[in-house]
């Protein structure tokens, strides 16, 4: 036993897979300690992109540091895209004003183009084309209007006593900077927010934990049932074996996916909690574990040590537990690992079809994926709402498959 464990942990595949899994588990246990609030708090708005969010009023309140950094061109570069620069050139060309626009490159001379466009743009010049086409230029003008000015902004607060109704409280110069650390109200979204405005990273960590739990529960149930049926039918034999094999074979052929859909649909959505879904998955996943345990048991049944036990008058249960179980255990562990990863996949599949756990207090990987698909995250370009989830699912099954391959190599030395 000790030797086996040692060789197992010398196998690269197993160790890599095991480390990934342990890292994921650590992540689910440790990160919640550093996160504020519950993972499903709706803090943001629809699909905020990843980044550090600071409060804008806090920026105004925070100490300012004038710096000699050329800001205008940076703001310009961020605000005006290549296409918009081209659009400006198009206006300059079509307006037929006497302006030197030729030879300007939308990529390199962006500042010059914007300057020229701002200086010459005139609403009253009617370009040929649809009104939507003309309005595009007006919109563009309004957008870039303030970009080049170095005057900065003036901050007002509402003040009923003053004549204008506003009172000036501060000025923001174009050269003013603020240290982000000085802004007290800020929140870092490593993976942005989802369709409900929840912190995807926080949600993902708790979803990984919940999905692993689904896998663990379902895998344990499936492995226990499979082990019991496989051992009994393999060792006891006779009509019981015929019957159990018949049932097992039947359920390996009838797609468990179908039974899952029918069963989950039959359970009313109000009672479909994460644990219930895990149970349902476990109840449908046992057949192939039973199959392989049975065939393993059959090869062991007539070994000498089993025969000796039988001659010594030991009971069936005792023989199974002491003489057969230890020999099939390695296969059972491998089957268990595969059961866990396929249960996690099954949960994700069910959730994608709207038959997953119906809960608003817990997230699972499948639910996260299903939410982001329902809210068309790919079309919004919100990759952070689904790519990390898909990668997590893949990473979990990858690590488990690796562990399985490693174990396979340890137990079947020819594969090495």
């Amino acid at each position: 036993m000790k030797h086996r464990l040692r060789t197992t942990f010398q196998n690269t595949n197993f160790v890599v897979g095991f480390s990934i899994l342990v890292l994921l588990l650590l992540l689910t246990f440790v990160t919640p300690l550093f996160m504020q609030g519950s993972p499903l708090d709706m803090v943001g708005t629809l699909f905020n992109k990843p980044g550090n969010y600071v409060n804008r009023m806090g920026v105004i309140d925070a100490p300012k540091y004038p710096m000699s950094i050329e800001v205008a061109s940076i703001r310009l570069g961020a605000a005006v895209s290549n296409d918009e620069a081209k659009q400006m050139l198009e206006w300059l060309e079509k307006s037929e004003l006497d302006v030197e626009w030729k030879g300007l490159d939308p990529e390199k001379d962006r500042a010059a183009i914007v300057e020229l466009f701002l200086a010459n743009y005139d609403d009253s010049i009617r370009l040929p084309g649809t009104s939507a086409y003309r309005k595009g230029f007006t919109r563009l003008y309004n957008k870039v209007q303030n970009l080049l000015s170095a005057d900065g902004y003036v901050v007002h607060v509402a003040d009923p006593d003053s004549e204008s109704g506003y009172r000036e409280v501060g000025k923001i110069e174009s050269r003013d900077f603020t240290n982000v650390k000085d802004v007290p109200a800020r929140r870092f979204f490593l993976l942005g927010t989802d369709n409900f405005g929840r912190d995807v990273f926080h949600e993902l960590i708790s979803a990984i934990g919940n999905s692993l739990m689904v896998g663990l529960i379902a895998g344990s149930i499936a492995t226990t049932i499979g082990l019991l049926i496989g051992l009994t039918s393999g060792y006891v034999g006779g009509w019981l074996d015929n019957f159990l094999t018949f049932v097992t074979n039947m359920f390996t052929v009838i797609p468990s996916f179908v039974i899952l859909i029918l069963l989950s649909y039959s359970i009313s959505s109000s009672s479909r909690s994460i644990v219930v879904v895990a149970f349902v998955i476990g109840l449908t996943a046992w057949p192939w574990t039973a199959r392989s345990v049975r065939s393993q048991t059959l090869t062991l049944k007539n070994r000498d040590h089993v025969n000796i036990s039988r001659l010594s008058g030991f009971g069936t249960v005792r023989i199974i537990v002491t003489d057969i179980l230890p020999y099939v255990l390695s296969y059972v562990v491998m089957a268990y690992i595969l059961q866990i990863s396929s249960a996690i996949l099954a949960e994700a599949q069910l959730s994608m079809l709207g038959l997953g756990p119906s809960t608003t207090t817990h997230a699972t990987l499948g639910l996260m994926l299903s939410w982001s698909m329902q809210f068309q995250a790919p079309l919004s370009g919100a990759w952070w709402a689904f790519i990390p989830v898909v990668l997590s699912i893949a990473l979990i099954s990858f690590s488990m498959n690796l562990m399985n391959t490693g174990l396979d190599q340890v137990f079947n030395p020819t594969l090495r």
Partner: protein
Amino acid sequence: MKGYTRYFRNRILWYLLTFAVALVLNFVLPRLMPGNPVASIAAGVTESLTDSKAAAEMMEEYTRAFGLDKSLPEQFLVFIGNLLKGDLGVSFRRYPTPVVQILKESVPWTIALQLPAILTGWMLGNLLGAVAAYRRGVFDRAIFPAFLFVGAFPSFGLAIILLFVFGIMLRVLPTSGGYGFDLIPGFNLQFIASAVRHYQLPFWSIVLNTIGGQAIGMRSMSIYELNADYVKYSRFLGIRDRRIVGYVFRNAMLPQVTGLALSLGTMVGGALVAETIFSYPGIGSTILSSIKAQDYPMISGATLFITVGVLLANLVIEILYGFIDPRIKANQQE
């Protein structure tokens, strides 16, 4: 041939029995639901109907469809009787379209997508797995973890990634549907071209997933066979390497064929969910919308069809297996 006939007869009988059990499950499972299924389903649907007469008709239709006024065995007989007549009830969502009609619309799409995709992925996977086992070295060391990683992605996960990369970021392929929304299905060049373009992403997401899974199995089977005594003996006899590889490949294929039969149900399930990502007009999307609309007869009909499809595919595989593996014939003749 005598041995074969017996083998096939036994298998076909066994599959018929399995089908019967599947039928019973399809009938019993939804009726395990606590409370009156008709009331809870009908309440959801009739709520939106303002016409009280239509609502009452709907309720009646539901009760008739479920035949709840009769005893359970009687209901089962009615269920079987209707099935023999090719009647799977009427869809609630698309009332009064019969379920069979909707199945007829969506089944060709699913079969045209999944059959070639699973077969292509299976063949490519076996080929790559065998090559990796035979070559070993760098090729194996680089490609094996890659298979393992790609195979770890469920086909719907790959579907989402492919959709995002090729459909939205690069905008080279359409993201949803089975053909352009402005086209009417027909046998013309424009429609076929559009269908082929819409086919790419769902197809490759299924193929990639299948390749990964199959390659790993084939690789370890091939390595196992390459170390077998008959290979050493053949080498000793001086038989050419190519021939030996042929033997090895053939022997390693056998478990892969059984493996295909065993994992077919799972693959089809994953592929059905991948369909829904692209709103492909197949059974997967039909099931999704039926679940959303609580369209029970449609769900039951669709799952029954999937069961029949998987069972038939399994039967075909087993019959093929009977021809490939000479041991089966020998067993039967004893």
